[in-house]
């Protein structure tokens, strides 16, 4: 059966004039299946966003391939992206439009007819708790609302593959939970989801499999609990949370990351 998303030996080197070339992604490979959420876990600078941009076909890869339902994103970007929804890390909302109009307009880029786009957008805005903002300009939305809208917009074409680049970074716990619920629902509906994050809890909660990304390389890839069991074990970890205060807690993906790379997820140091 054709995989919704398959990435093979993908590498990306940045060649900036006057600077040394930077190999940001070093031959990563994985496949994502229908109804699977696959996480790329790593700190800032690990190569997550570059990988996402190459996988969606926005950046050309230096070598390797990225295929959506066996369609090469570089050779046939139009066909491949018809099945793809992307939520970039940066805010790319179109501030010239109201919330509803921008959803409908975005749908037209995927050949979604205006009336159908309006129907889908209304349902999505309801689902994301943005219905009462549908006539507002983007400028009037809070940071959390903007992020929700950006994810909602990525769903207006009803994509079979969803690329979410740090969708919850900087959000408060309530908004984060709304997005987690939506991601879980999309997974149940059968979408293949590629999620990048540096939140271990998010990766553990949402992802069926997690790839530990460090300096552009996948160090290991498995279900979160398998990664923990394999690299850390089941024993509780004792740590000093402040001078003289020690506590024990279950092992988590942060410990896996630390063991594999010698650095922490939050800052990569």
């Amino acid at each position: 059966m054709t995989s919704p998303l398959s990435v093979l030996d993908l590498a990306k080197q940045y060649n900036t004039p006057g600077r040394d070339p930077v190999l940001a992604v070093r031959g990563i490979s994985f496949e994502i299946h229908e109804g699977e959420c696959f996480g790329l876990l790593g700190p800032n600078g690990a190569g997550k966003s570059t990988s996402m941009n190459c996988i969606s076909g926005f950046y050309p890869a230096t070598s390797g391939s990225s295929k959506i339902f066996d369609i090469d994103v570089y050779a046939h970007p139009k066909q491949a992206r018809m099945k793809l929804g992307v939520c970039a890390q940066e805010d790319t909302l179109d501030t010239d439009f109201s919330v509803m109009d921008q959803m409908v307009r975005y749908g037209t880029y995927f050949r979604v007819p205006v009336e159908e786009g309006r129907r889908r957008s209304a349902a999505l805005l309801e689902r994301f708790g943005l219905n009462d903002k549908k006539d507002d300009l983007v400028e009037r939305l809070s940071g959390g609302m903007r992020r929700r809208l950006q994810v909602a917009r990525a769903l207006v074409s009803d994509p079979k593959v969803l690329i979410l680049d740090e969708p919850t970074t900087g959000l408060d716990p309530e908004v984060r939970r709304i997005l987690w619920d939506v991601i879980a629902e999309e997974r149940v509906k059968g979408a293949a989801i590629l999620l990048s994050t540096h939140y271990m809890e998010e990766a553990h909660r949402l992802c069926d499999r997690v790839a530990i990304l460090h300096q552009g390389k996948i160090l290991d890839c498995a279900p979160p609990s398998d990664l923990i069991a394999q690299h850390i074990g089941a024993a509780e970890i004792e740590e000093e949370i402040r001078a003289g205060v020690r506590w024990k807690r279950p092992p988590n993906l942060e410990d896996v990351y630390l063991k594999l790379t010698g650095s922490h997820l939050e800052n990569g140091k």
Partner: protein
Amino acid sequence: MTGWWGVRCVWLRYFDVYRKSFIYSIVTTFVEPLLYLVAFGFGLGGLVKTVQINGASVSYRQFVFAGIVAQTILFQSFFEAAYGAFIRMYYQRVFQAIATTPITLSEVLWAEVIWDASKATFAAMAVLLIGTAMGDFHPVGALIALPLCFVSAFVFASLGVLVAARSRTIEEISYPQYLLIFPMFLFCGIFFPMESLPPALQWAAWVLPLTSVVSLIRTLTLGFPLRLQAFPILAVWLAVLVPWCRRAMSRRLIK
């Protein structure tokens, strides 16, 4: 990989924004050329009665109205492209958002330049209409001038997109604005006959694309002698600027 459906789709996005902010759009598109028409056509035109070129004599108002068609094309296309494209690329990230959909960056960039040229052509059309209504322009010539307006606007829009792509900050757009656009505006024959300039300056002015645009518009609207060099000069600018601006913007966006 470019398809006209994608270009049309993005062009409609621009048109939709223009339509939604109708009053702002009308003011920014049409008021400036109208102010120039009134100030120079009627104000200065009252002082300078006629202009003689190659034995032909026209009123200064006719002369400057035709120049203002060219000036409108220059300003409307360049400023929309340079500042508008910079904002869409750098602040709004519209290009990036659209280029991750089935619409390619190549289509987005075609749509950008075509929109900038379209908007400038709307504005130039208003000046042509006024000139024709006042009996200053040959009606048929004014109509034939429309495609020329679009092609000329395409040249200046490409220049604007190139400037947007090469500017690190929005303030840097001021350099080409003051060092290239304003000198063109002043020395390419909008307000006075090129023959008034010293020969060396005439040569320099003819290298710039606006001189050709002014000359061709006066030929069509006022029946001035055709200066054949205008065609190859515009063609060279078009051939250089269009691929250059597309390459520069692609490099800016795609790492």
